[in-house]
């Protein structure tokens, strides 16, 4: 597990990534997590399951997504920027890779209902989409604060036939939505699959979601070789729970590329978090000296989470990946810059990765380096918010 070649493969039997991970859930949920682990391993080794997943991702999701070499942005900042275009997936983000896989798994397990949390609404929309595609019932928990700032996605989910329930407890954002989804699942586990949205939660979720997102990195590795005749010097992705970053890093962890995860400055669990146990996992969380979890604050609802997936905590501890931050202001500037140099309006979440690259180009990123950035989602959902913040 410590050799670099073994990184981002199997967690230990207890779901550990180094000292992080595990399964810290009430007894009622332990058997469900065990069933899920068994079902996933069976499915993942089954060519029929893999074939059906591949087919859906291609014919329904639009995979493979391209890697695009940015000419004008690269000239502007002096490093060679490549974008892995997950924003071109059906529903507009990388979240679809995960939910199609989990819905297929839920179906194989005989479950008829999906429950999920959502922050920005992208995972909620993706889950509602998969539920419609598979003919399943769907309930999405969303913090009341996020419902206000992501109105369009709320309507989208309802249009897709999902029930969207506002969460009024705690900070009324993503962390509270996860609590509520877990509470739902405790009571409904016989019929319901909890379709978690990132590489977090109790084992085996961080493993399942990383494997389902691995396609980002696996595709991108080959695409970079085709374009650069080499691996990129840096691979950069934003980190909320960390699923698009984990999926991307999985394809490059055994390469020479420097791996960089970029968190929101107001939700930087990797930089400011302390080891703790929330949402079923031992990882890093923003918390006070008494162990109460703190609220994250970010312009981007998708990164507004006080924790991070356990495998990132491990990669950070090993130094195989580094974790940096971008501020709300830098992110807004990055949205404008990418829109005006490349004609691509990014979601606020991946704009964090762009913002960090723009800031560090010519500084900690040497001039003329090649940098792959995962463009995890498109910006349509954020346009109203950006308009308000830029005062235009």
């Amino acid at each position: 597990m410590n050799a670099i070649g073994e990184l981002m493969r199997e967690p230990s039997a207890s779901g550990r990534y180094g000292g992080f991970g595990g399964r810290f859930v009430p007894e009622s949920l332990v058997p469900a997590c065990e069933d899920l682990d068994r079902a996933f391993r069976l499915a993942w080794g089954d060519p029929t399951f893999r074939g059906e997943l591949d087919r859906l991702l291609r014919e329904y999701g639009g995979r493979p997504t391209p890697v695009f070499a940015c000419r004008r942005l690269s000239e502007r900042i002096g490093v060679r920027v490549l974008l892995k275009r997950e924003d071109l997936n059906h529903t507009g983000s990388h979240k679809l890779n995960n939910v199609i896989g989990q819905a297929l798994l839920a179906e194989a397990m005989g479950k008829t209902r999906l429950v999920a949390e959502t922050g920005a609404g992208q995972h909620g929309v993706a889950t509602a989409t998969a539920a419609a595609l598979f003919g399943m019932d769907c309930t999405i928990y969303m913090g009341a604060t996020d419902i206000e700032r992501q109105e369009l996605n709320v309507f989208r989910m309802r249009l897709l036939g999902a029930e969207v329930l506002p969460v009024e407890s705690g900070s009324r954002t993503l962390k509270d939505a996860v609590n509520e989804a877990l509470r739902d699942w405790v009571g409904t586990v016989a019929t319901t699959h909890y379709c978690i949205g990132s590489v977090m939660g109790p084992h085996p979720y961080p493993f399942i979601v990383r494997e389902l997102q691995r396609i980002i990195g696996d595709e991108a590795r080959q695409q970079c070789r085709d374009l650069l005749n080499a691996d990129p010097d840096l691979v950069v992705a934003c980190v909320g729970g960390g699923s698009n970053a984990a999926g991307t890093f999985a394809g490059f962890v055994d390469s020479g590329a420097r791996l960089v995860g970029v968190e929101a400055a107001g939700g930087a669990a990797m930089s400011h978090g302390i080891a703790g146990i929330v949402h079923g996992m031992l990882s890093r969380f923003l918390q006070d000296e008494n162990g109460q979890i703190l609220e994250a604050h970010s312009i981007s609802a998708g990164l507004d989470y006080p924790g991070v997936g356990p495998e990132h905590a491990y990669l950070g501890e090993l130094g195989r990946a580094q974790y940096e931050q971008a501020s709300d202001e830098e992110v807004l500037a990055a949205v404008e810059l990418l829109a005006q140099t490349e004609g691509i309006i990014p979601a606020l979440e991946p704009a964090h990765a762009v913002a960090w690259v723009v800031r560090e180009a010519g500084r900690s990123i040497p001039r003329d380096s090649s940098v792959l950035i995962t463009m995890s989602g498109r910006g349509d959902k954020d346009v109203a918010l950006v308009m308000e913040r830029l005062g235009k």
Partner: protein
Amino acid sequence: MGLAPSLLHRRDAGHKLLVPYVTGGLGRDWIDSLEAVAAAGADAVEVGLPFSDPMMDGPVIQRASVEALASGATAQRIIAEVASADVSVPVAVMTYYNLVARMGHRRMAHLLAGAGVTGAIVPDLPLDELDGWAEEADSAGVATVLLAAPTTPPERLKLIVERARGFLYAVGSMGVTGERADLAASAAEIAGRCKAATDLPVLVGVGISTPAQAVEVCQVADGVVVGSALVRRLLDGCGPEGAADLVREFRVALDG
């Protein structure tokens, strides 16, 4: 006396066991409520150490946790108040693992033992993750109460029973804490399975809201934990006397 001996003593004398739950730090007079509840016929009391993200709790205990935390409650302060409370039955705490981990296993175990707390319930610390804490708790003399759920398979129940201390907490209903109009069918079933697996007292919690439900489930179980029904009244301002009244109602019904 330790938690298990004390409860066994009462059970073997022919009593059904009643364990009310009070959120620590909820209102200025929460210690008065604890003392009143303990004196009104409880066989042990459970004190919640509030956590910001109580995954196993429904709306009532969530609200109580938020209120207690907003008024400055901390685990240390609550445990210190328990230490000086006038309670003649065993006290167990119920909390979430992050509070324990943040303080440190050994420090928490010693703090509890030093305050005379004889049991701990940590619902998000299942059997498989128990080792680090259980070692310290065992050596400090704090009984770690484990949960058994309707979904727990028989082989796993055996392992749980081996590691359980104090009493076995049979989760009566699949779901989080909260009041239910009817007793779930799963309650008597899991209580029966637990009774067949252990000599420890078997108490049913989650969804025991009325004295009638308590009596019904105690046809199989040794006793009940009553949480949300009591905490809701405390949130509504029933005060120590009102809380004691409810506990007396349960006591009378169980002694029927």
